[in-house]
């Protein structure tokens, strides 16, 4: 049984492994954080959020201060998909962001059965109004 946990990650409940949904790469044990099986890049936020005001002239430029915050980018080590980002204070340990209870998950999904695709959720549709 495989459960899609995020846009790019799933858990194989039998092998208890995180897997990449893009390339099927086995990332690591689901008893640990998926980040431990990822490549990490310490991204200067100015590269993603470009200065709109001239940084030579101004203290605030629409650009995050690279000494105050960094963007940790987590890549699948096999296909290079960016699985997650984390805006982090410099030096702050990365978060163990998703820590599932695997036995409970297994019992829950045993009752559901494998889904072909994750459920997207309902569309918000315009009300057709009240008419007679």
């Amino acid at each position: 049984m495989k459960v899609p946990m995020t846009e790019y990650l799933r858990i194989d409940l039998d092998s208890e492994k995180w897997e990449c949904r893009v390339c099927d790469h086995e990332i690591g044990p689901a008893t640990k954080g998926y980040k431990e099986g990822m490549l990490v890049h310490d991204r200067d936020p100015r590269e993603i959020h470009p200065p709109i005001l001239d940084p030579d002239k101004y203290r605030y430029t629409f650009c995050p201060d690279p000494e105050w915050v960094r963007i940790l980018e987590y890549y699948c080590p096999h296909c290079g998909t960016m699985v997650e980002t984390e805006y982090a204070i410099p030096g702050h340990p990365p978060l163990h962001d998703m820590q599932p209870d695997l036995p409970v998950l297994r019992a829950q999904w045993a009752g559901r059965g494998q889904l072909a695709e994750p459920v997207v959720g309902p569309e918000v549709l315009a009300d057709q109004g009240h008419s007679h």
Partner: protein
Amino acid sequence: MNKIATPAKTKTPSSEELALIEKFLNDTTLFLGPDPEIMQNHDLMPRSAVEDEAIGRMSDAHTIAKIRDRIQAGCDEGYEMVEQMGAAPGAKWGDVITGVYSASGDLAIASAGGVLLFSALVHHPIKFIIKNWLNDPTVGVREGDGFIHNDSRYGNVHNTDQSMILPIFHDGKLVCWVASTVHEGENGAIEPGGMPSMAESPSDEGLKMCPFKVVENYEIKRDLLTFLQNSVREPKLQYEDMKVKLYACLRIKQRIVETLGTDGPDALVSTLRLTMENVRTEVKRRVSEWPDMTVRTYVIQDSTLRENCVVKVNCKLTKTGDRLIFDFRGSAPEFTNRPTNTIVAGLKGMLSQLFLCYVWPDLPRGQAAFAPIEVITDPHSIMNCSYDAPNSQSLMSIFTGFTAGQHAVAKFLYSCPEKYTKVHAPTFNMINTFIWGGVSQHGETLGNLCADLNGMGAGATVDRDGEHALAPIFATMADIGEQELNEEDVPFLQLVSKKMTRDAIAPGKYRGGQGYTMMVATKDSDQWGFMTTCQGAKIPPMQGLFGGYACGTYPLAKIRGVDVYDVLLETPEKFRHSIEELMNERPFEGASYTTHHMGMGFEISKRGELFMISQGAGAGYGDLLERDPAGVVRDIEEGLISPGVAERLYKVKFDPATLAIDHQATATARDAERKARLARGVPYAEFVKTWNKPTPPAHLQYFGCWGEDIDKLYMGSAERFRTGSEPKPNYMPNPKDVRIAELEARLAALDALGGEKQ
């Protein structure tokens, strides 16, 4: 409210003695302050004997559905009345709400539109009235009475919101309450507009109305009204909106009386109670469908609105079985003299808004949906501040707390087959708008804000870009106002408004909805000024989702020493319509061009000086290399992103003149970028060896826990800290004193103090 703490080493009193002491203390209470027993609890009151009997006599589901719809329609009618007739700008844009509360004070049904958060928090003042005034011979609660309230320490979010609360009787018995709340704006605080960022104690926050009776026989008492008018900058607004709220409550009362006439009190009482109980049960069922998991996230506030610093909002969300537990321990300690703290009820109200607007919008809007969800905080923290701490800018903490919750919830919902909305990246969470005040062109004293606070860029969803400047996280169906109408009352113009700020982006497979530029300049008053109250000029106030990026940061820009109205009259070709062009090209000779963080205290402006900000973008969703190239080009065409930035980030190749996409070259560039990621990415175990540091960086003033040790709360540096459970004062120096000390140190270093005596 008196809890008896027995010193450990003295004789332990017997239970009889304790009861006697408690009675003595209760009988001789000198001041009925905010009541922790009421304020710390957000669950439903226990089912009363009256409710139990009513349900025993009437619990037919069809009748209940009919009555619920009828009361819902009554609430919506009251909402419309306040929105149409209210004088506060906030009322006109839908920053209002109405609701019906059970006899015990729980919010059973709220209007479909408006700021649910308000209603979800008015149960606290109602419970205060029930506990303290109902049986007080000098006050009492009678038919025709109305109570007013605004002090957030007794309920609600901040003191700018005022509520009118009416008890409803049937045959002499209290059957329920109705209430209406409006973001009024002005409340006589140290700065105009009702949300002072300069407040250093609760005494700077203006009007502090604990719940009191201001209406008798359905009429506002003129002496009390005059006192309230005399305490604020907008006396006419105070009167008009008290009347509007009263009449909205009376309209809802009329609908309730009609229901009592047709269906009787049992049906009404049973409907209110069962609506809440059924929602509470349904929420527990829905939560049980989520995966059992712990999700961790944090959001950073980068200022107190007075100074830039790093203030952590720490969130661990755990779901086990049918329990959902928000744990905000480890968040920054409360600031003793900064107003960005929140009382915990405000945080809970905002989280309830998360579920009813973004997760389960199909559920009846009331208090019950959040009732079974648990919240843990440290005492005297920014998420659960003491009653001695200022909280007039609690929005900063409840919004960032909301975003932490929204980010965490998305990670639970993705795998859950039962969904009521789509998985959603965080929506922008700061009120990037101008608060204004002074004397208008008509000679009136005013203090309020631009409705653009409601224009927050939406987060992207699992299959769609976020919508631009759509609606605030605290209200559905709110509006960003008609600026032209506003300009008839106020002496300034928005010279640029609703123009998207190019390159202020949140990229992703689906990008966040973007924000727009606002440029204001005073025109027809010598006594007019602005303030801004947002964080996020140095650190984005949110996180992206599943590989999407958050928004960037948003500064305040000023151009002073120019009268832009003269420029527009004489040399209009010099004017530019973007902050980017005005600030980088500096077209007005002799003017000063400066940038600032978004916590501008109230500042008087001269005619024609430009104050410029941008709304923020919602967060992106997914890996930006998966974005449809056509979507990237559409963003260029719509002025959301410049071609160079689009090409560099999204690796889309196109003809610079025609924007025709070269799909082959795009695929090649994206493959190359994926390979580049593999080359530059460092294996996690190796990465953390150099990245992880044991304490916060020395160059940042850091507040809150570091890493997983949530019990050690830093207070500005690695050397200053407290434990989570033991409060300590946390004073910030005046930023001007800090600056003076810096400059004096430089003078001293130059030996230029001139022998000044110390």
